């Protein structure tokens, strides 16, 4: 019932949110979504963000993260969509959505999905600026975020 999509095509966040929320049983009380957008750098020189991934492993890693969250927070459903390829500032990179009986579970599960997706799903970002290309370094704070769970 959960859905995972790793794709290069853009997607319509609003349409995905509505589709995700439809047809749930009447015990659902809370839906949380997170959308990640390509943010420009502080000096505004980002031309695009190139997202590389490991086809095959990416889907497996995401599936495992989602299954763990569904189990732990008794989610009614969960959704992950993540793009790869060349994205410009302002474009949507990815989204997650969770739904549960209560708000705390839906929020925590969405944060868990994001924390694990950041550091445990095989995606790599390269920034292309007017000065050239550079791989984005993983942040210690993203690795540290996993300790919460």
């Amino acid at each position, binding site marked *: 019932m959960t859905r995972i999509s790793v794709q290069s095509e853009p997607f319509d966040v609003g349409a995905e949110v509505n589709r995700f929320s439809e047809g749930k049983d009447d015990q659902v009380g809370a839906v949380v979504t997170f959308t990640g957008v390509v943010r420009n750098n502080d000096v505004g020189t980002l031309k695009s963000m190139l997202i*590389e991934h490991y086809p095959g492993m990416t889907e497996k890693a995401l599936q495992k993260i989602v299954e763990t969250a569904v189990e732990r927070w008794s989610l009614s459903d969960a959704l992950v969509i993540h793009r790869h390829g060349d994205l410009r500032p302002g474009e949507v990179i990815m989204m997650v959505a969770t739904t549960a009986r209560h708000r705390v579970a839906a929020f925590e599960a969405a944060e868990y999905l994001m924390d694990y997706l950041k550091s445990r799903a095989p995606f790599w970002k390269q920034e292309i600026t007017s000065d050239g290309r550079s*791989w984005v370094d993983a942040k210690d704070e993203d690795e540290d975020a996993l300790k919460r769970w």
Partner: protein
Amino acid sequence: MYVVYFAWVRERIGLPKEKIETQAKTVSELVEELKAREERYALAFSDLSALRVAVDQELSDFDASLDGVSEVAFFPPMTGG
């Protein structure tokens, strides 16, 4: 066995995937074998703390056995989301 590389590891080694015949019993042994091959491998594997490894598409570590393994991947820490 296939060895695959991503992000700057792929760039330093200069290819995304290669087929390797090896007697290495662990990922570490494979790394040593690769480093001995050519400068570009030695460079890519110079700091293992900056690398992650997946064995048959599961995150793993450098101690992992290669027994029955068909694909090993090397890449930097992931930056998804």
